[in-house]
C-alpha cells in the first residue's frame, strides 16, 4: 500500500504540470482563434527578415 505514497504525489505533480501548460497555452492566444492558424502550414511564407 505504501506505493500510493509515491504514486499519488506524482499524479498531483503531473496535474499541476498539466494545468500550468494549459495556462501557458491560454495566455499565449492558443485558444483565441481556432480557425486561422490551421491554414498557416499551407503557405510558403516568404517574409523577409526584419532589417
Amino acid at each position, binding site marked *: *500500500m505504501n506505493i500510493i*505514497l509515491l504514486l*499519488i504525489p506524482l*499524479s*498531483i505533480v503531473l*496535474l499541476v504540470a*498539466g*494545468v500550468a501548460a*494549459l*495556462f501557458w497555452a*491560454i*495566455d499565449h492566444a492558443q*485558444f*483565441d*482563434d481556432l*480557425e*486561422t492558424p*490551421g*491554414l*498557416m502550414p*499551407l*503557405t*510558403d511564407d*516568404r*517574409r523577409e527578415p526584419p532589417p
Partner: protein
Amino acid sequence: MTRCFHCGEAIPEGVAIFATVAGADEPVCCPGCKAAADWIAGLGLDGYYRMRSEPSLRPPESVDFSAWDRPALRRLHVREHARDRAEIVFLVEGLRCAACGWLIEQTLGRVPGVREVAVNAPARRVRLEFDPTTVSLAALMQRLAQVGYMPQPLDAGALDSARTREDRDALKRLIVAGLGAMQAMMYAVALYAGSFDGIEPATRDFFRWLGFLVATPVVLYSARPFFAGAWRALKARHVSMDTPVALAIALIYAASLVETFLHGSDIYFDSVSMFVFFLLGARYVEMRARHRTGDLVDALARLQPSTAERLTESGSESVGVHELECGDRVRVAAGAAIPADGVLVSGACSVDESLLTGESVPVRRNRGDAVIAGSIALEGPVEIRVERVGADTVLADIVRMVTRAATGKPALVCEADLRARRFVLRVLALTLVTALGWAYFDPSRAFAAALSVLVVSCPCAFALAVPTALTRAVAVLARRGVLVVDGDALDRIARADYFVFDKTGTLTRPEIAPAESLVHRGDAADALAIAAALEQGSSHPLAVALREAAGAARLPFVANRRNVEGAGVSGRVHGRNYRLGNAAFVTGGDARLDLVLADEDGIVAEFAVRERPRAGAARALAALRADGVGVGVLSGDRADRVDAIARELDTSVLGSGATAAAKVARLEALRSQGHFVAMVGDGVNDAPVLAAADVAIALTSGAAIAQAASGLVLAAERLDELARVRIVARRMHTVLSQNLNWALGYNLAAVPLAALGLVPPWLAAIGMSASSLVVVLNSLRIGATRAETRREQPAARLAGVPA
C-alpha cells in the same frame, strides 16, 4: 458564364481584363479587381486564392482615409502607448474567412513602421500596432482598401482586450475546476470504499488531505466569481443568486476542513468541486452566447460611416463623424451612408433605409424632410443639415435597444433565481433549527445533522435547473441558424398557439414571370439579359429577381450606368440607351406591367412581377398546422394578391390592405379571444406589430429595428426551421418543469430525513451530487431527439438560378 477571378461576380460581355496571378492570366471583371489581384500576386501572396473559402469583395473605388489621421478621430480610436507606438483595433468589412485574415496580416505586416498585426477572423477584428512617426494611419487604411477590405473604426473603449481577458479567465477557471473535481472524486471513491470495507485512520486522513489539496484551488480560484458576486450584492445590501451559491461553497468547504482536523465522520471536498465545475460550465456557455450577440451590435454600429464631408465657407473638408455638430452642413455622395440624423437641404432624393427599417423599397425624401444616420443616399451628391449626432441618433437608439436585449436577464431566470433564493433562506433557517434541536437532545450529533441538512439541500439543483435548460436550448437553436435575442421568447413561443405571418418579404419574394411578360421588340432572352445587366450589382429584391430570371445567360456590358431618381436605372448597352424601371419613369406612365424596359425608340419589353412563396414557407406552415397551431396571413398588400398567396400556401387570411394600426388591432382581437400570438415578419410597418404580439420572430434579411423588437431572429431562407424552433422551445419547457419538480421533490424527501438525523452526511453528499447530475443530464436531452435535430433535404433550387 465566366466569373471574376477576384470577386466572383459575372464578367460582363465585352470586358477583357486579365490579371497575372501565379504566372497565369486570370479573367477579372473590372480595373479595381485587376489592381487588387495584381497587387496580391505582386507581393507573392497568391497563396490567398488557394486558401480562401469565400470570394473577395470588389475593391472599393477611391476612398479618402485622410480623416483617420485627424486628432479628433484618433483620440477616440487610437491608443497611444508612446510617441512611436500606437495601437488601434478596427472592424474589417469583407473579412470573410481565415485566408482573408492571413492576407491582411501579410499586407499590413510588410509596411515599414508596422510593429504587429493580429487578425481575429471570427470577430472580424484587426489589432494593429504601428509607429505613427513613420507611417500614417490613412496610408495603412489605403493599403488595406487596395486589396479589397473596408476598415471601420471601433471605439477605443471597445478594444477587445477586455473581452479576450474575460474569455481566457473563464476558460482557466473552468479547467482548474474540471481537473480539480475529477481528482477530488477519485480520492472520494477511495474514501467511500473505505467506509464500507474498513480503512486505516491514517490512510483515510491521507486521502482527506489530498481532497483538501485539490479542492482548495477550485474553491479559492475557480469559485472566485461567485464570491465576488455575493460580496458585491452584500455591499449593495441585497441577495443575488451568487449569495446562496457562495454561502454553500464556503460552508461545505469550511465544514469539511473542520471535520478533517477533528478526524470527524465525513468530508465533502468532492461535492464542492463538482458543484463549482457544473456552475462554471453553465456560465461559460452563457458567456460565449453573450459575446456572439456582441457581434450583432458591432454590425449595427458599423452602419454609421466614420467620416463625413463637411461644407465650409471655403469649400469642404473631410472630418470624423464625431466632430460633427448640430447645424453643420454635410455633403453625401451618391451611394454613401448618411453620417448623422438631419434635414435634407438640397433637392429631392431617394434614400435606402433598408438596413434600419427593413423597407427594401427606397424612400423618397424632399427638401426639408428628415433623414436618419446609417441610411444610404441613392442619388447625389445631397446636402444635409445636421440635427442630431452621436448618441442622440435613431441608429444609436437601436443599438442601445439591441444591447439591452442582449445583456438583460430573462424573466425566466430571474424567477428561478428568486425561487432558489427563498429556498436557501428557508434551508438556512432549517439548518439552524436542526442544529439547535439536536444540541438540546444529543449535542454529539448536532454538527453532523446540521451539515447533512445543508449539504443534502444544497441549492445547486435549483440553481442549475433553469440556466442549463435555457443555455442548452439556445445552443441547439444557434447551431440551426436561429438567434435567441431574448431568453423569455423561448418560453413564450412554447406557449404560442397562433402564428401570424406578414406576407411580403416573409412568406414571399418577388420573381419575374417570363410567360406573362410582354416582349414588344426582339428576343425575350436578350431583353432579360439587358435588364439583368442594367441591374448588376444592386441588391434590391427586384434586381436579384431579374438576375435570377436571366440565369446563365451572358450579360452584355453596360456603359454609363446611372441610378435615376430611385425609380429605375439607365445605361448604354450595344450602343443604345436603355431605361429600366416603373412605367412612370420609363415612358411617362404608359405601360401595362410593373417593370418596363425601353430604349430610344420606345418600349422593348414589359416584365410581369409576381410573388413566389419562399422556399420552406409551405413546409413551415404545414408543420405548424400539424402541431395544432393556428396560422394566418396579415398583410398590407392588396386583397387579391394576399388571397392568391394564402390559397397557394393553404392558409387563412386575417386581413389584407391593413395599416400598421389595423394589424395591431387584429392581433389584439386574436389575443382577446384567448390566443397566445406569435408574429413573424420584417419591415418597418411590422415593427409596432411585432411589438404588439406576445412573441415576435424577425427574419435576418429584414430590419434591424424589427430584430430589436423581437425575441428571435431567423435566417429568411430557413423559414422551415420555425416548426422546429417551437418543438425545441416546448421541449425546453418540459425539461425545465421536470428539473424544477425534481429539485423540489428531492429536497422535500431528503431534507426532513436529514433533519431527523437519518441521513449520514456521506449519503447526503452523494444525493446532492446526483441531484445536480440528474438536472444537467436532463437538460442535455433537449435537441437529442430526431424531430429536434433532423436536417431536411435542402429545398430544391429555384428554376433559373445558376448552379
